[in-house]
């Protein structure tokens, strides 16, 4: 839920990276953190286990600078992918403005991708999004790990995960490929939604 703060002259958007365990959500944020100039990004906060698995979330704020008099920030979050962190994922989804679904292209992870997408649908309903809000929610799909041997064909991933034809990108997040394109796409989709939707005002 975008927050427009007229006193601070700031607008914040929340984008959540979702997907099954080890699909590359955290790697996306790490590559973005590495790539962006220091003045454009904040501290990468990771709440992870000793083995670098996301325990709760990763958080990376990106500063777009001043746009029409408003400081504009995108707050990027990841969720923990493992099945048993369901409640933690729900906590991170609160107030989101856009979603990036990261799919793992490894053939052994096809079922995990499907299960994660189904879980996401359930979570979005549970946090109170109406069917209309779900339909209008900005989504982008990222087919990650395109470099693995015998990667699942994109057409197959699309058919299984993205039949509605949301914007989609192939990526190798570990090398930084497709990472910026994915973020650019979801940022623009979120901005388009802002322009199209009613806002709250109180004078």
């Amino acid at each position: 839920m975008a927050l427009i703060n007229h006193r601070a002259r700031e607008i914040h958007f929340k984008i959540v990276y979702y997907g099954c365990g080890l699909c590359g959500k955290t790697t996306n944020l790490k590559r973005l953190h590495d790539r962006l100039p220091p003045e454009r990004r904040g501290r990468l906060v990771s709440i992870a286990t000793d083995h670098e698995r996301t325990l709760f979330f990763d958080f990376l704020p990106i500063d777009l600078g001043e746009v029409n008099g408003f400081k504009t920030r995108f707050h990027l979050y990841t969720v923990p992918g493992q099945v048993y962190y369901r409640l933690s994922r729900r906590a991170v989804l609160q107030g989101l403005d856009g979603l990036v679904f990261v799919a793992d292209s490894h053939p052994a992870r096809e079922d995990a991708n499907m299960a994660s997408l189904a879980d996401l649908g359930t979570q979005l309903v549970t946090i109170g999004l109406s069917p209309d809000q779900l339909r209008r929610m900005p989504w982008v799909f990222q087919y990650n790990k395109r470099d693995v041997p015998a990667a699942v064909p994109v057409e197959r991933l699309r058919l299984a995960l993205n039949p509605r034809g949301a914007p989609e990108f192939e990526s190798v997040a570990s090398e930084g490929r497709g990472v910026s394109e994915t973020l650019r796409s979801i940022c623009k989709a979120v901005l388009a939604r802002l322009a199209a939707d009613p806002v709250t005002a109180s004078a």
Partner: protein
Amino acid sequence: MPQWTLFENDFRAIDQVLYELLEKTNALSVHLVDRSGQLITTSGRSSDFDATAFASLVAADFTANAELSQLMGDASIDAVVNEGKSRSVYSRMLADRVIMCTVFDRRSTLGLVRLRASRAAVELDGVFRKLFEKVGMVETGRGTSEYAAAAGREVDALFGE
């Protein structure tokens, strides 16, 4: 989800309550954080820590504790306490959507902060509930479209198109 906007008028009532809370508790600072992890406003001293990271962690912490509370059989949770060695944080939910965090040190006490924050929460709860009743009641203005277009160009510039 619908966007919401805070104008200067909204802040006048909020500022007064936060100022009184600071005065009466001798707390270091009070922060209002949206449940999604975005900082709304701050009163008092807060320049020595990363306020953006603070807001995201507070929101996640509160939501996680709410889930924990539900597991224990409670429908909701009113407050979360972080008791540190040098500074502590007392966080309380307002209007189901805004978290009020009072940061204090040894010059105050948890009991006093809890008492005064509860009273402040009653006042601010009403302010925010009135604000949220207006969600979706105002149509998007031309300025919003222009903003979105300009921000889109900045996104392109940042990511190299």
